[in-house]
């Protein structure tokens, strides 16, 4: 049902476009109508990798060109039909994606973008060296249809449209599935995604493979339209830039972005070229450039998002009139502060043995050992720089320990990748919140559920359950960008528990909350503990902690100073000294 509904707009759009194109008899306009879906599909392929994962590729021409050359050379040297060559080109593009992705994904951010830039430029020279400066497709006068050489230019447009529709639907399916969720999670915070149980490298490789395949297929079709392939026209900088331009203009990270960008920009560039360029040669480039700069300044994320935000604002202001403000506010389920058995003596679920980690000369964590018992709440405290977050990073696999062991249910898991540790049952939240601002609360939480869920439906169910447990069900459909800090903290908590971990590592979950708000969150955590969750929590706010935890572990300069029951630890002179300095030790004693 959902799938059917999301397919409808692209289907209607494609039909409308086809009707318009069939009405156009001027072969020049028809060519422009053919190029729009070509660049839209290329933009979509770029979007699939860069739009969803946030890893900007400046080198998508590599795949495009491989597709174009495969299609052209296959016809010239082996006399194979492009109907067959375009799928072959897609396969080659996918392989190229895998080969390029594997080494390049070691890099991040600008480094990734720059490395990607190098591939098409390098391949360009290879093709020049091979002597393929100018390749023309042979005319097949006897069997034009079998070689995709249509006398009627409408057919090119229709074929381009079919490719576009297929790519849109594929992108939509991916967007709604765990694939899309994983990519979005990587975009927001790769580390957090790993911590949520997502094997980021595997998903990124899948994305670049698919993206490369689509780009190569459309590159092959482009060769068929252009009939001449030169290294500059398929591997050139301008080709890579075209993908970025249409996607960024229309909207990054949405299926409609590249389509909008292409529908507006490609004809605009041509009209400028034909009209303005005829009067003042070269002015078309200037106007085109200024237009893009203006749109990017006014709508930095692209037209689609700008329009959607405007629309949302309008509907939201209408809704505000009819709805009571109460309903819009988050309604945290009131929880009874029921007493809970302090369970510091249960079965050991996590054991840390002599864990150490140093950064150069700095010993961030040294020789830390402790045990976490089933269903206990352990508070980890210590002054700033005591090594608390580093300890968490060692526990969930962000960092590899220099020494020592982390035993989960008796199994040594130290040095494993974060998503593996997540699968073993450890969830965590972060000191700095990483919500996926444009997604609804439920969608934010679904990302965390995939580590356990086998199907998309199961993941939705588990996410809904997690949202209910933190008391956000009433606002589950709202976009994360509209939430208060408290709601965001609860949402992050929900994302961490959606994967049904047995152990939860909470890093300063109460930070930035007002007094009353902190109490609400504390209540939720207590309820989790009552439901059988084992929790380790880092926190600065002593007040809240003393009421919450069963035991304290106190760190200073990376080492354990003491551990024990709250009432004992808070009176410990070493703890007071570590927190407040030596001179307060005497005061505290009084």
């Amino acid at each position, binding site marked *: 049902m959902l799938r059917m509904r999301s397919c409808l707009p692209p289907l209607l759009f494609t039909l409308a476009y086809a009707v318009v194109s069939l009405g156009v008899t001027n*072969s020049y306009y028809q060519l422009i109508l053919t190029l729009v879906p070509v660049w839209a599909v290329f933009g979509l392929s770029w979007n699939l990798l860069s739009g969803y994962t946030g890893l900007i590729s400046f080198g998508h021409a590599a795949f495009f060109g491989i597709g174009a050359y495969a299609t052209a050379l296959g016809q010239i040297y082996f006399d194979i039909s492009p109907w067959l060559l375009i799928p072959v080109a897609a396969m080659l593009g996918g392989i190229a994606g895998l080969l390029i992705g594997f080494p390049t994904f070691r890099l991040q951010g600008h480094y990734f973008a720059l490395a990607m830039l190098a591939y098409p430029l390098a391949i360009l020279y290879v093709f*020049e060296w091979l002597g393929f400066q100018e390749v023309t497709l042979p005319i097949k006068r006897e069997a034009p249809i079998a070689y995709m050489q249509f006398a009627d230019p409408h057919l090119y447009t229709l074929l381009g449209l079919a490719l576009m529709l297929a790519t849109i639907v594929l992108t939509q399916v991916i967007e709604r599935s765990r694939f899309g969720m994983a990519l979005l999670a990587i975009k927001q915070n790769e580390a957090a995604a790993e911590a949520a149980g997502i094997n980021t490298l595997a998903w990124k490789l899948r994305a670049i493979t698919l993206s490369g395949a689509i780009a190569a297929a459309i590159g092959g079709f482009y060769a068929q339209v252009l009939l*001449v392939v030169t290294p500059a026209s398929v591997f050139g900088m301008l080709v890579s830039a075209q993908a970025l331009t249409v996607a960024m203009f229309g909207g990054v990270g949405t299926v409609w972005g590249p389509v909008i960008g292409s529908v507006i920009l490609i004809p605009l560039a041509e009209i400028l*070229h034909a009209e303005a360029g005829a009067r003042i040669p070269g002015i078309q480039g200037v106007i085109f450039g200024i237009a893009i700069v203006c749109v990017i300044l006014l709508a930095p994320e692209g037209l689609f998002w700008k329009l959607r935000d405007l629309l949302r604002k309008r509907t939201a202001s209408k809704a505000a009139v009819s709805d009571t403000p109460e309903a819009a506010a988050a309604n945290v389920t009131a929880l009874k502060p029921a007493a809970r058995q302090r369970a510091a003596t249960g079965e050991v679920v996590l054991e840390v043995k002599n864990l150490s980690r140093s950064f150069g000369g700095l010993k961030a964590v040294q020789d830390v050992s402790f045990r976490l018992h089933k269903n206990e709440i352990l508070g980890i405290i210590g002054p700033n720089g005591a090594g608390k977050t580093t300890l968490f990073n060692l526990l969930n696999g962000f960092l590899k320990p220099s020494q020592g062991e982390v035993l989960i249910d008796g199994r040594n898991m130290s040095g494993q990748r974060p998503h593996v540790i997540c699968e073993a049952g450890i969830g965590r939240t972060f000191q700095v919140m990483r919500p996926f601002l444009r997604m609804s609360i439920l969608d934010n939480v679904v990302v965390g559920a995939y580590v356990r869920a086998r199907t998309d439906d199961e993941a939705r169910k588990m996410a809904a359950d997690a949202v209910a447990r933190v008391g956000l069900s009433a606002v589950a459909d709202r976009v994360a960008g509209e939430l208060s800090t408290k709601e965001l903290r609860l949402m992050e908590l929900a994302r961490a528990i959606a994967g049904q971990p047995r152990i939860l590592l909470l890093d300063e979950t109460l930070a930035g909350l007002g007094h009353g708000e902190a109490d609400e969150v504390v209540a939720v955590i207590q309820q989790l503990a009552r439901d059988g969750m084992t929790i380790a929590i880092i926190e600065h706010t002593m007040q809240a902690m003393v009421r919450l935890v069963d035991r304290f572990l106190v760190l200073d300069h990376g080492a354990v100073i003491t551990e024990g029951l709250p009432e004992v630890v808070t009176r410990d002179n070493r703890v007071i000294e570590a927190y407040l300095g030596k001179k307060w030790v005497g005061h505290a004693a009084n």
Partner: protein
Amino acid sequence: MTAKSKITISRRTLLAGASGTLIASRAGWAQQPSEVKVGLLVPISGLYARPGTVMREGAEMAIDHINAQGGVKALGGAKLKLVVLDSGDTTEKAKNAAQRMVAQETDLVAASGAYLSSFTLAVTEVTERANLPMLTLSYSDLITERGFKYVFQTAATAGSQARQALPQLIKLAETASSKRPKTVAILTDNTGASIASAKAMRDGLLAENQLQLIVDETFTPPLADATSLVQKIRSAKPDLLFFLPTVISDAKLLLEKMNEFGLGQGKVPTISFGIAIAEPDMLQTVSPELLQGVLTCVASWGAKGHEALIAELKTRYKEPWMTQNAISTYGDMWVIKDALEKAGKADRVAVGEALRTMDGGPSKYYPLGEIKFDEKGRRVGAGMTIVQWQAGIPVTVFPPELALAKPFWPKS
């Protein structure tokens, strides 16, 4: 029923009358068109705007001359009108412009274009399907190897140019220095035209002319430093250096470095292919002394018999000399005019047929050969010119019947 048939009859009569007038007026128009449109599809924006502009200048001059001399006589003195389209700076833009040309300028009878051979390849894919005759100065062999019927290549193809040039260069060297050159070096960039020329030399041409290749270097423009290339030349001491740059900065860098190493100003005779090294822009960055004596083999150049044209180009457009782009495009317009005279009607298919069958006698504006095209669309007997930098101007020195100055062989 009766009413209906009445209406039909009256409508029919109306229609017949209307179409009758239409046909009559159209026939009259075909007999005496006041204007015949000719297309020029060249880059006038972007990276190649400069050569494209020069091509336009050549075309404009030709159109003015043709019209001043009474237009197309077979069409009652109809004037030619130039329609200029910008091919932009990419293959895709060139193809789009060609599609615009055939879709929107439906009354064009022929066109000229499109500078770069890759543009011409894409453009002619469109014009061929629209039966629009296309004259081109691009000289890639590929252009006329596709079995197209509406493409006419006025220049000798790249392969043919190299074949023609080598014996002449050797003859030139022998007469000037009374010594036959034996060893050569090739320094070429890896752009399409350069690669094609270098390949023709390596694949037999050098051997046919008893020349031994002792240095063979290919570089990717733009060069960052020419030192290592020049060092190879210096240690090998070839009798001739074939230097094939496309980018002016590369030419400058190498010539300066040669000079620095004491190889410049003719110590090692330097020969190029193509017009890059003889473009007016060269003088903006390289001093005339460094260029003195450098030879280049080009498809066409302002030569003997073109003195008036060269002077007009100079005064009207401030061009210091007449390159291949200006003279070839000038000639294209005259060929189209001749074809119109032969066809006797302003129709592209008829003009195409006229071009295929025409025999316009010896060529005036293209070097050597005739105004006649073979079955591939190549100009019969198309020659080429050798140009030499002399006192800050590249002048035609070969063939002798077109030479504006005597060649001098750099003394070694």
